[in-house]
């Protein structure tokens, strides 16, 4: 942890044991990154958001009845590689994604962030989310949790290698679809 970021974060107090301090620092760094991601998505800066990803990537949203679904064997709702995610972003930017044109208003809360180093430069993270999406007269709520595989580096501290957004819904009703990015 460098001094500059320490000074911004009073929680990472020198009085804390070394190991605890480093866990908290990691979590704070991941939280910062996830808040940044959330802000980009909520403000529809989807092209900037796409820059947060590594070259090889996987963005997954499993079917509601199979939260542990494996994209090689099971039917998910979304299983984007770089090419598909790029197309997804493009459809939002071009306005051909009719469900999000005109764009809905989305707002998400990210909580319960956990993070651990799994190998050099690789961090596994988990967070709960609630996304509120309103459009015309309807408000849909998308509660769930996201699992991330992050790689360290880049201007924001991390890149996303994998994001798996698992919805806590039995069915996608009355939402009907996930046409924005979770």
């Amino acid at each position, binding site marked *: 942890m460098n001094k500059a970021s320490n000074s911004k974060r009073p929680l990472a107090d020198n009085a804390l044991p070394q190991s605890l301090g480093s866990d908290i620092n990691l979590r704070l760094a991941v939280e910062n990154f996830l808040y940044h991601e959330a802000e980009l998505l909520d403000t529809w800066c989807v092209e900037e958001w796409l820059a947060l990803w590594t070259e090889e990537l996987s963005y997954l*949203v*499993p*079917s*509601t*009845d*199979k939260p542990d*679904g494996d*994209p*090689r*064997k*099971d*039917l*998910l*709702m*979304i*299983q984007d590689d770089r*090419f*598909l995610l790029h*197309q*997804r972003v*493009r*459809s939002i930017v*071009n306005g*051909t*994604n*009719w*469900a999000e044109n005109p764009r809905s208003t989305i707002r998400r809360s990210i909580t319960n962030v956990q993070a651990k180093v799994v190998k050099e430069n690789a961090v596994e993270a988990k967070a709960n989310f609630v996304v509120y999406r309103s459009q015309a007269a*309807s408000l849909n709520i998308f509660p769930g949790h996201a699992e991330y595989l992050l790689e360290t580096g880049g201007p924001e501290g991390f890149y996303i290698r994998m994001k798996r957004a698992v919805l806590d819904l*039995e*069915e*996608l*009703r*009355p*939402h*009907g*679809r*996930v*046409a924005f990015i979770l």
Partner: protein
Amino acid sequence: MSKIESKQVNQPYVIENKGKSLFQVNRRVFVDDQILERETRKIFDTCWIYLGHESEIPNPGDFLTRQVAGKELIFVRSREGDVHAFFNTCPHRGAMVCREKQGNDKLFVCMYHAWSFDLAGKLVNRPEAKRYHADNSDGVHNLVPVANLDNYRGLYFVNYDVNAIDLPTYLGGAREYIDLTIDQSEVGMEIVGGTQEYGFDANWKLLVENSIDGYHGMPTHTTYFDYILAAGGQLGDTGTKINKPRDLGNGHAAIEYGSPWGRPIAKPVAAWGEQGEKDCAEIRAKLTERFGKERADRIAYNNFNLLIFPNLVINNVMAITIRTFYPQAANKQHVKAWALAPMDESKVMRERRLYNYLEFLGPGGFATPDDCEALKMCQQGYMNLKNVEWNDISKGMGENKQGNTDEKQMRVFWREWDRRMQSAK
């Protein structure tokens, strides 16, 4: 329904004027809860309605619960291997006896008073049984089976009408397309794990029309066709030149066509590389051996969207989706969609299939959300019913040759829908 004027209630649901080549549907059929109540009686309670696929309950003791056309059902394979469909309600006081979505068990035990039933529906035990003097020899205390349960090539249907015609007769010409689908595998077809369950505010018949609508593709699905071009594909038909909507009898209809996309059975695309071409050639050779070249090519290359009246859609396209949908209210529907695949498919082909499926289909796919939006917009547009009363389904009428982007296949649905709704029964 306050928005409907009394003079409008007397309008026909459907007007077909052959002289003027005009086919119109009155928009109140999408908004009126009384019409939905009539549909429940005249259509959902008398037609064969899709329940599930045999592969969903492969082993003795396997069961699943499912709401099918407004009724709570248990779909179960007994210890002896027979398949049953019961109303999920205790003959005692009515509680649902099975509360899990799926599982494997020996008995269903009602949580309320612990009456228990074997998987063939027979009452086997109840606390303080001696207090009942009426015995159960007439089965009055057994689970109640649906009036009719039958399957065609592994697809199970129920019919709540004791006077129903048999399933094969009901399916009529639709069997040709079910056969083309199931014949993909020598071993059998299976539902892939993971169900897409979603719902939105639009009348169920709008999804019927949309599922066999060849006209909306380009404008609604720009996202998808942009994707195909970006992937290096070509738009339009790259296989067969067939383009003929089919009336399959009893309200069933299909459109069959070639496509720019790859088919895991067995039309390769560039993205699958040389190995993909080799894999597909092998599958085609096997199909040719089983069916001869003509039918093998039809199975491998031809796409179709099949409607089985009233609410089952089998789209055999870049993957196979089985999709069914039920009204929750006149302006709301509940959709369930599954992926169907050959059991003996290779791992790599299954991966290609699933990727294909999600590039177009489902609530997070690159096309289905746009359909959902279009149908919601129709439903909202019907708020103007009082002033703008009619939908137009005339495209292609008066032409000698009907194409898939005409609306003949929708007229097939509407004629049958109207016939059943007018019937005295």
